């Protein structure tokens, strides 16, 4: 067992709106091992993005604790890949990357690092293009290069391939696995795509519909790179999909019971 980089305990999130209260995250507890590829899998609108926003500090939590620190107890650097690339349209690819670097890097250093990570995602010759000159998949690659260029310990990814066509998404998944193995970064990945989760993750945390709770926690130890044609992968997917249906059914049952009572 590796070091537990992220420890979430009893996390709750309540939104206050129009005088009412909406419970979005209900008592989540889990931890993320250093260097792992951990995925949160849940239906659309279950509050997965809220969870990420809380982890990055964009939103406050209502109850519980989050501890993200290295074994030396110092603050851990995190970075973020969004559903859409979120590039500044008025900046070239390389300037988009150096934009997030802050003060600790000089201009030349920043540019050097940017080029290095553009190489990693195979886009170094597009460094001086503007985002609108790139395809959706290429833009998302720039987003990944940008996130990696701050040299994070944890990379948070919020359904990063959900807006891409399936062929592009497939290639990007394979590339992401490569990058992950090369950089040793800890990836905390969010998706509603079951086979995507099965293909990439060391571990899958199933989340229920709102208010989201953890339904089940799977460790996946199939060798990599996994292939969709592989019999064992096929079995895994079947198992996961059965769990997913069970979860949905139990959820609907609760709903029904609530409605009849």
């Amino acid at each position, binding site marked *: 067992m590796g070091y537990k980089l992220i420890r979430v305990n009893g996390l709750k999130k309540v939104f206050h709106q129009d005088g009412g209260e909406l419970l979005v995250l209900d008592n989540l507890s889990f931890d993320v091992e250093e260097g792992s590829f951990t995925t949160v899998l849940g239906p659309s609108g279950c509050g997965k993005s809220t969870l990420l926003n809380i982890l990055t500090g964009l939103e406050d939590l209502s109850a519980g604790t989050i501890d993200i620190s290295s074994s030396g107890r110092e603050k851990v650097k995190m970075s973020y890949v969004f559903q859409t690339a979120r590039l500044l349209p008025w900046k070239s690819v390389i300037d988009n990357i150096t*934009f997030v670097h*802050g003060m600790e890097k000089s201009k030349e250093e920043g540019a050097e690092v940017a080029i290095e990570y553009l190489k990693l995602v195979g886009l170094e010759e597009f460094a001086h293009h503007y985002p609108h000159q790139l395809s959706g998949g290429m833009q998302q690659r720039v987003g990944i290069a940008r996130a990696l260029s701050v040299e994070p310990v944890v990379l948070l990814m919020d359904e990063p391939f959900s807006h891409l066509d399936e062929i592009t998404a497939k290639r990007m998944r394979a590339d992401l696995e490569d990058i992950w193995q090369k950089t040793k970064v800890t990836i905390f990945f969010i998706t509603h795509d079951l086979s995507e989760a099965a293909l990439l993750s060391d571990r899958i945390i199933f989340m229920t519909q709102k208010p989201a709770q953890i339904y089940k926690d799977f460790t996946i130890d199939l060798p990599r790179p996994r292939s969709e044609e592989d019999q064992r992968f096929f079995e895994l997917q079947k198992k996961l999909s059965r769990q997913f249906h069970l979860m949905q059914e139990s959820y609907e049952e609760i709903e029904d019971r609530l409605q009849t009572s």
Partner: protein
Amino acid sequence: MDTTLKTRLTKVFHPKVTGIVCLFILWEIASLITPENLFPNPYVVGRAVILGVILKEGFLFHVGMTGLRIIIGFCISFSMGMSLGVLMGAKRFWEEFFTDYVIIGLTIPSLAWAVIGVLWLGLRPLTPVFATAMIVFPYVAINFWEGVKDVDKDLVDMGRAFDVSKRRIIRHIYIPSILPFTLAAARIGFSISWKIVIVGEVFGASNGIGYMIYYWYHMFNMRLVLAWLLFFTFVMLLVEYFIFKRLERSLLAWRPQAIL
């Protein structure tokens, strides 16, 4: 019509040049069927532009006064409108507070401000500036208000997630997003400013282009009224092409070519 013929025709009849030539042809026709003192022909007016406007004594003084009023009025209304618009775009409370003020500001007739300006300030050289500032600034405010609201919140969140400083977020996200609205505000603000200054000069000044138009109107001299108007329009076209178009091209260079 097949496409090659079409492209060849648009090459011969450049749309802008053809448009201007058409204007002069229509003008000539109109002048032929109306009395000379109501609608002098382009040649007569053109001669008047040179002999009766540009080469006349006091020409630079009148043009300078009008130019000065436009610039002062524009700067005042632009800075007031910018402050109000940004405040309204950024803060919900002030947005609701000022919405009706802006709408009222847009509906008050320009003539009313011109008259009020004269009554309050008397016939002073800068009286037309007052009317200009009051009339133009709601238009500028609306553009900035929209501009600030239009800033992509996802991009701002991206910056925050990466711990980019507030100053850098303002400089590299807010300002570039608002830039096209700033340009629109400047254009609209400027084009209204000069119209209002001219009206203001009719009422409350004893010099400037508006005053000269008014003067020749009193003399029933259509030729020189049109000559001053033609000269002024020409100057404003130069401003559009040599200032605003250039600014647009250099500030918004990142945009896809198709939009420009």
